[in-house]
């Protein structure tokens, strides 16, 4: 196997996991959730009793995400986002990071 590709792949996984962990840590802090970030599965609905996100908390989360990762998330990306699960939120943050890197 191409070692270079393998290294790129493992870096990608590490970096992506890092983003997911940081997003979940922000969720615990901003929403004051009584659980560990590791216990928040990607498939959990943002509306579930465990998370109970509302639209105002979403904005608070995104401001915290901007502080953590830098840059500014585009208004339209947020308005158009179809956010249902924790995984969707992580994907939005990854999209933001990718946009910042290519900017």
């Amino acid at each position, binding site marked *: 196997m191409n070692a270079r590709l393998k290294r790129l792949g493992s870096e990608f996984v590490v970096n992506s996991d890092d983003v997911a962990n940081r997003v979940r840590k922000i969720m615990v802090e901003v929403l*004051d959730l009584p659980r560990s970030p590791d216990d928040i599965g990607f498939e959990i609905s943002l*509306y579930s009793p465990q998370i109970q*996100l*509302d639209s105002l908390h979403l904005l*608070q989360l995104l401001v915290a995400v901007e502080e953590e990762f830098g840059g500014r998330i585009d208004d339209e990306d*947020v*308005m158009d986002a179809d956010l249902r699960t924790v995984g969707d939120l992580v994907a939005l943050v990854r999209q933001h990071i990718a946009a910042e890197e290519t900017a």
Partner: protein
Amino acid sequence: MKALRNQYLLHADDVPTHWYNILADVDVPTTDVRRARSAAAERETGLLAPNIPLSMYRSSVGKDRFVEIPRQVREHYQRWRPTPLFRAHALEQALDTPAHLYYKFEGTNGAGSHKLNSALAQAYFYKNAGVRELTTGTGAGQWGTALAMAAQAFDLDCTAFMVRCSFDQKPYRRVMMELHGARVVPSPSPVTSTGRAVLGSTPDSPGSLAIASSEALEHARSLPGGRYAVGSGENHVLLHQTVIGEEALRQMELAGEFPDVVIAAMGTGSNFAGLAFPFYREKLRSGAATRLVAVEPDACPKLTRGRYAWDYNDVFGTTPMTKMYTLGHTFVPPGMHAGGLRYHGAAPLVSALYERRAIEAVAYGQNAVFEAGTLFARTENLVPAPESAHAVRAAVDEAMRARAERRSTVILFNVSGHGLLDLSAYDQYLAGVLPDHAVSDEQIAASLARLPDADDAGAGS
């Protein structure tokens, strides 16, 4: 004899380039807004669509002292701003007071009140966020008129749900909104399920701002590019209004005085904050002992008789809770002419300042307010909106006190809008048939007893 100078005017270039963010100077937490026990509507749609553009929200919770006003918004401001600051010489003479009375007049724009300051900013941010239609609930109609004009300016559609009794009693407000391209729907309406439910049980319901706002929210959620815009209370609205105080600071400098007391009417707090917050900053900087006074109606005394507690913003308890001075979200104030002051709670930022005793509050009955409004009209030749007449009343009392104590004092107050669409209220005052609405301790205690249990409402601490 040298002519007395009445006006202190600035040039279009002097329109502020930045709004003032008081969060830089007051340590108020912005993230401890509790979650609603039932953010039901959001769960039903299954879509977490923020109601506020992130760019507008971001600056309203940040710590940057000055927030740049977008160029397009400032250009719209320059169509009528800076607004004039007047020295009320005629009123001073009538009161035979040694006090110097100054007032900022925010009614010079087409919408007739300070509300346009935030409506234009909001329309700009919503437009940039891809929104196509703004909805709102309106009672007296000042906010609806301003939003209709702002939506027109930024090529957005606008639907205003207007409280049925105001819709019938204030046809000119409806016409104003329609003239500026808005669709005006009397509320309760058959357009929404909320409206249909109310009409089902009470076909001749006069409506309320709570119902109209709920309808506007529901309607916005049913539209692909729709959002619900609010005209007071939220941090971003207070932020936008600070152009009033920023201009007034410079105009007082032109007058060569600094106010000993700054006075504005208190509805939810945007016109008060707009004038008073920049003076709060200057107080901190200079150590001046200037008093900041919010004036509320006897009929809705949220600061003077309310409680600092967690409460909902709407009567149905569907919004996230905020910590504020409140009479309880189920409190229904008696009908009165200053419709813009009938909200049950005070803006969180104004509440936090009041709790720390950084500002003062007084309350007046309707006749006392119209008495001052009438005196103001007869001396200054300007009919103040009933809301603004509350500030006039407090300013007059401060000036009378100065006379009694034989001391000179400098008073600045905000005439947030004109009262030309409220002449029927003045007519009732002149005819001596204007009622005063007293609210009993029992009434307030009953609605405070229905405050939500904040610790039971979610995972917040």
